[in-house]
């Protein structure tokens, strides 16, 4: 992988689709792009087959804009809605078998480390709540216990949205769904607590109704994963089909859920604070200078 890997073979550029030419000439590769500039550059994400108004798509779009080095990033996903959009992007996507995504990402991270040494290569896992907390639970937790250096992002829509609305481990207690007619009998799994116990260096919850916050969370998680250890982001990305949310009310629902049970939270280990403060210029994480006593 290098900055040139999307460029054309000489002489072929005029036969390429417009979207491809825009990507090469006006894409974010090698530049610093941010959410505030969105709409003025060609994004990594392309057209995709996800439902109209899907909050998961919005989150994936913001995440792709927020990657600190998109040209050095590989995404890993698994079965579920999310991979329909994640795979439609101008950065490499690896499809792990259902539940294997964190195992695949572990191998990929180690391989990239062997091949490229200290040159930063980011691996970002994006999978749904089913792929991560139910079927891929063992692989996810083991990758955290092994301190594998990559970012894990859970796209938590609190349901198996792709297969018709079965309850998942992340569904709330009592929730009635199309394929869970009597309501869920158990509490929502505390993946945040488990991530902290397993030793993740950075754990955050986020809702996509604040694009700049999503950007800052993703940037921090990817940068910490490069240097310190595993990072975990849990994002509420509602399923407007299974939860019957009108598409124009998706952000209203995100706001309600944020106020109800998905408040923004961020946990950083001491090493992660030090890494952000010293290596990447996040001044708020540097130790505060000792206050000199006022002379009396």
């Amino acid at each position, binding site marked *: 992988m290098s900055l040139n890997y999307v460029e054309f073979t000489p002489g072929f550029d005029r036969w390429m689709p417009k979207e491809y030419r825009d990507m090469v000439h006006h894409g974010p590769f090698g530049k610093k792009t941010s959410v505030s500039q969105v709409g003025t550059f060609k994004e*990594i994400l392309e057209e995709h087959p996800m439902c109209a108004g899907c909050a998961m798509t919005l989150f994936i779009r913001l995440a792709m804009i927020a990657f600190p080095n998109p040209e050095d990033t590989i995404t890993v996903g698994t079965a579920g809605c999310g991979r329909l959009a994640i795979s439609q992007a101008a950065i490499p996507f690896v499809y792990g078998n259902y539940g294997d995504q964190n195992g695949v990402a572990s191998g990929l991270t180690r391989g990239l480390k062997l091949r490229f040494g200290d040159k930063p290569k980011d691996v970002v896992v994006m999978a749904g709540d089913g792929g991560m907390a139910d079927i891929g639970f063992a692989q996810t937790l083991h990758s955290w216990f092994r301190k594998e250096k990559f970012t894990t992002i859970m796209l938590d829509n609190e349901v198996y949205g792709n297969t018709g609305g079965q309850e998942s481990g992340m569904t709330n207690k009592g929730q009635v769904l199309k394929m869970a007619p009597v309501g869920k009998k158990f509490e929502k799994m505390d993946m945040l607590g488990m991530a902290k116990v397993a030793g993740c260096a950075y754990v955050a919850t986020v809702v996509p109704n604040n694009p700049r916050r999503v950007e800052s969370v993703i940037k921090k998680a990817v940068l910490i994963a490069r240097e310190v250890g595993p990072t975990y982001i849990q994002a509420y990305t509602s399923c407007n089909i299974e939860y019957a949310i009108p598409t124009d009310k998706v952000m209203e629902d995100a706001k309600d859920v944020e106020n109800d049970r998905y408040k923004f939270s961020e946990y950083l280990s001491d090493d992660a604070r030090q890494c952000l403060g010293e290596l990447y210029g996040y001044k708020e994480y540097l130790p505060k200078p000792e206050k000199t006593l006022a002379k009396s």
Partner: protein
Amino acid sequence: MYLIAYIDQEICAATSCKLCTQFCPEANTILYNTEAGKDKGMKYGSAYVAVDRCKGCAQCVWVCDNMAKHNAIKMEMIDQVGDSALTENITYAEKNTTAKLANPVRG
């Protein structure tokens, strides 16, 4: 026929909050032209919709009405919006895009 988002450039160019560009779930669908309002003597540029990419979810309408409180975006039928931006007519420049407007319904 189906509905797509249509941005009133006069209202948009007076405020230029760019919230709709950040909240659209589709990539490169709501774009921003820094020059759009300046021809008409407005202070800022304006956002516009690439109608061939818009899926008609109306999330931008909610964001414009309730978060920005500008009420600049309406849902309109694709054959009634007049000249609009299509992806093939959009030109990217350094930190800006422009669109040659054309009728979205052909043939």
